[in-house]
């Protein structure tokens, strides 16, 4: 018994010394096996129990179990300590994570999505498929812009055939004609798309840019509807207090025609042209102007994006400088 007591004390002392120096989990596991494993020192000690006299067995058992629990708890405690120290040392939560490459939507795409959503909300069907190289007929003639009319100067045109019959569309309005030729009224369409002009790049001009236009044809569509629609459109786009100003203007394909300015950041900005569909346009597509009336409006999307995002130079939109694109 005394011998047992001595051995327990010796093991305890040794164990306490060793465990104090163990600093990693592998060593700790080895230590656990050395003491508590199938052939561990503590386990071996239990084998001595059978040689202890019966009256002392109880005391000896208590002594051994005490040691076993002590060792087990010490190991568990040490494990927690080591793990805790691991966590502190292995992760600096203030460090940045792995570098990622993030996707960015072009600002024009963002404006298009917004415009399309507003248009859908107002009951327009968004049409995004249309030819960008057009015939003179769709770009001009059918829109009541005859050859040799000074109105043609409103659109400086890029041609792809010598006879000028094929050209890069100067506005999205040919889609009005193409759509009306295919469908019967009523219809309400919104057409965003690419347009082209013979303009060199400068701060406010680009040879290719975006327009969007709306067309609504029904019985009794009126100028008052045009005003109401555009006012709501502008409020959605620029904020609920947005004010618009309509002044008379001229477009060959609308009559009456108007130019619209928005009051934004303390100034009136011309943003949009519009009007009631010209009877000759209806005649070109075979609609009876006595039965149907309609309004149309169109605007430059680049300009809209520039106003919205505070971009002062249109070239930024088409240069693809990644620093610029990542701002959006």
């Amino acid at each position, binding site marked *: 018994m005394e011998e047992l007591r001595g051995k327990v004390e010796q093991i305890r002392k040794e164990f306490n010394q060793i465990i104090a120096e163990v600093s990693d989990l592998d060593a700790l596991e080895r230590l656990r096996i050395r003491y508590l494993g199938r052939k561990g020192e503590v386990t071996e000690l239990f084998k001595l129990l059978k040689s202890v006299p019966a009256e002392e067995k109880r005391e000896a058992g208590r002594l051994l179990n005490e040691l076993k629990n002590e060792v087990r708890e010490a190991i568990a405690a040490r494990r927690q300590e080591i793990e805790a120290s691991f966590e502190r040392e292995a992760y600096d939560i203030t460090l940045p994570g792995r570098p*990622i490459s993030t996707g960015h939507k072009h600002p024009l795409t963002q404006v298009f999505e917004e415009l399309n959503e507003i248009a859908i909300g107002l009951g*327009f069907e968004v049409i995004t498929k249309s030819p960008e190289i057009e015939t003179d007929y769709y770009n001009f003639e059918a829109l009541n812009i005859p050859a040799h009319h000074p109105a043609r100067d409103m659109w400086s045109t890029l*041609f792809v055939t010598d006879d000028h019959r094929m050209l890069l569309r100067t506005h999205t309005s040919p889609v009005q004609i193409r759509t009306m030729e295919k469908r019967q009224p009523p219809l309400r369409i919104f057409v965003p798309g690419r347009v082209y002009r013979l303009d*060199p790049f400068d701060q406010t001009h680009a040879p290719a840019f975006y327009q969007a236009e709306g067309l609504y044809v029904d019985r009794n569509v009126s100028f008052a509807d045009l005003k109401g629609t555009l006012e709501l459109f502008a409020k959605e786009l620029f904020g609920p207090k947005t004010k618009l100003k309509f002044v008379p*203007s001229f477009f060959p394909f609308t009559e009456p025609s108007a130019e619209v300015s928005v009051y934004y950041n303390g100034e009136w900005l011309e943003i949009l042209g519009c009007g009631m569909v010209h009877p000759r346009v209806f005649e070109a597509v075979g609609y009876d102007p006595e039965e149907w009336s309609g309004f149309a409006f169109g605007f430059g999307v680049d300009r809209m994006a520039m106003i919205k995002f505070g971009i002062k130079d249109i070239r930024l939109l088409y240069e693809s400088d990644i620093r610029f694109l990542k701002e959006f």
Partner: protein
Amino acid sequence: MKVLYNWLKEIVDFDYTPDELVGVMESLGIEVEDFKYLADGLKGKVRVARIVKLSDHPNSDHLKIAVLNVGDGEVTVVSGAPGLYEGATVIWGAPGAMLPNGMKLEKRVIRGVESNGMPLSEEELGLADRSETVIFLPDGKFEPGDDPLPYLGLDDYLYDIHITPNRGDLLGMIGLAYDIKAKSGGEMHIPEFHVDEEPEIGTYRVDIENLKACPRYVARIVRDVKVQASPDWLRYRLALIGQRPINNIVDVTNYVLFLTGHPIHAFDLDRLEGDRIVVRFARKGEKLLCLDGVERELDPQILVIADERKPVAIAGVIGGEETGVTEETRNILIESAMFDQATIRRAVTALKVTTESSYRFERKADVNAAPLASLYAASMVKELAGGRVGPANDVHGELLKPVTITLRQSYLDRLLGHHIEPKTVVSILEGLGFQVENESGDGKKLSVTVPSRRRDISIEADLVEEVARIYGYDNIPSRLESPGSLVGKWERSPFEAVLDAMLMAGFIESKTIEFISPEDAKYFVESEDDLVRIINPVNDLYSIVRPSLIPSLLQATSINLRRGNREVRLFERGKKFKWRGPNELPEETEVLSVVVAGTKEGSWIEKERQLDFYDLKVALQAIEEHFRIRLETEPHDIKFMYPGGVVVYNGKQIGIIGEIKKDVLKHFDIKVPVFALEIELTELPMPMRKYTQIPKFPPVKRDISILVDRDVHYGEIEKAIEELRPEYLSDFRVVDLYEGKPLPKGKKSITISLSFQHPEKTLRDTEVDAMFDRLVRGLIDRGFIIRGINDEGVK
């Protein structure tokens, strides 16, 4: 066009202040581009003064010291102006005056003598391009201290207005006055001209060869004129609206043009050969030295005014130098004609010249204005240059009849969405100078006769605009009805859907313009016949409508790399264009293009590395994932790529992928490898989402290593596995690619991890083994060497 407030006020009554007039014009659809008070900086700072004493400057041989009586006292000024004399009446600019050219007058000491301002010249006041000396005011009209600004025409406001192309009638003060009158309700005071024609002067013969091109020509002789400078008021008025005064005859033609909007021309009668004017198309090879000093070659689509020998003017555009009015001119022929707008426009386009005259004829002049303008001009010539005025020879074909249009109240109300009282409608139309007859008696149907000056009005809708314009767009209330039967929608296509895929894969969206140069384009087409060429490009760099988006993205890559943006991962959605001949519109195909180049930035956790082909390939994976489709890539020769390949969907080639060739990169000034792909979006289906049962049981994995020659593509193995695909093979992927020891030279090992999964049960090892064995045997049958199975002898 430049418009003076006071001039307008002479012609029409209105109560608008100069500022208010801006708003009124805008509400009428007349855009005011610029507006200013002409005497800004001068008002109260310039005075009539008399030179009471003049002496030489002691320290200068050309400067004089003048003592000026300025009304309330005397001031001393130093001036170098030639021709000063005691008793002269001049215009004194006081210290503090700001001249139109931006110069500010100050009290200064000039060579030891104090100078308080200076006598001013026309040039300094913005009334002439150049002046020899200061202004000497006529004697007896002014007292020292008077305000000279009204005399100079400077106490006035200048509007620079933009007229829409349909409103040629607004390009004269009288036409403009009619519009203002319609709004203000004031009276018109059209200047009345009268001239005693002397029949013995005779008329000049005019032959018009083409009455469509020239519907009217009014010729009038004025003999014995005295050509000299115009009076001050006329010179100043023309100068202020931007016209350089020339002499009294030319100035009259200009003045009448701006007053009536109708262009007038004057010839030196004695320089016309023969005795008649011929209005005809030019003959091939004819030339004309024009008044602007440019000799122009004419062609048979250009209408000219000719004498019996030669062209003397380009009809409606510009006169000839040789027959122009000069100081020697004694007798003149005044032309007041009308030319067809298309004819003038053709000449303007062909000759690339625009004048005040052509600008108006292009916008439809008023055929009835011709005789009136002739009368105005003759009367003014007589007044300013004396002479004897002959009768007009008015040659014309059938004249335009006034247009009468019916305006229905119902139509007006329907188009505007607002009811305007018939009384108001009538008064607006009459205010515009239209004749209105109440056809139905109750105002429901009006018969409106439009004067010939308003040739923009031809249909009922035009009248509606006139009414709305004068009524005021602001006074038409807004209305918004519910969408009704039309539902807002947007049928999205793969063009839209692919955006999400690219953004999820971490690419940055780019937008570039569709134009590239022929040098850029040549790499990207098999045949240059496929290119869409712009015949009138902005410049050569933008003369091709691109056959691919890749050249544009290479430009963007080049710019970014040069600007130090090292990681380029861009995509663009757009159209590529292909020429199909002059009788068919070019083919337009929506494509997605992606480029990857440069360096992926490193960090503390990962090393910096070059972006490579596999950074590009993820774009295809993202599309596969998003669209739930399979895209295969197969090696293929691509003109501008090496290595390159095609992207195949459903057995159809829909795109290309690869590394851009070095010579192409060099052309775009790029020094690092660039990887690119372009796929046609039109061939893709819209992404479909459908739920399939999530497997409840875990997959069983088996690895297989295949030994192949180094140049064998993984795609071949992939294809074989796809074809052999055991029933419960749910997935397989490459997990290792190895070359080197202990493999034989020229060989590589591709390790593929296979997942087997049964939807309804856990597969037993024996079942998996059976499938695995079948697959391995299949691969061996196809000639593949599987490591650890049939690689004896190769190892």
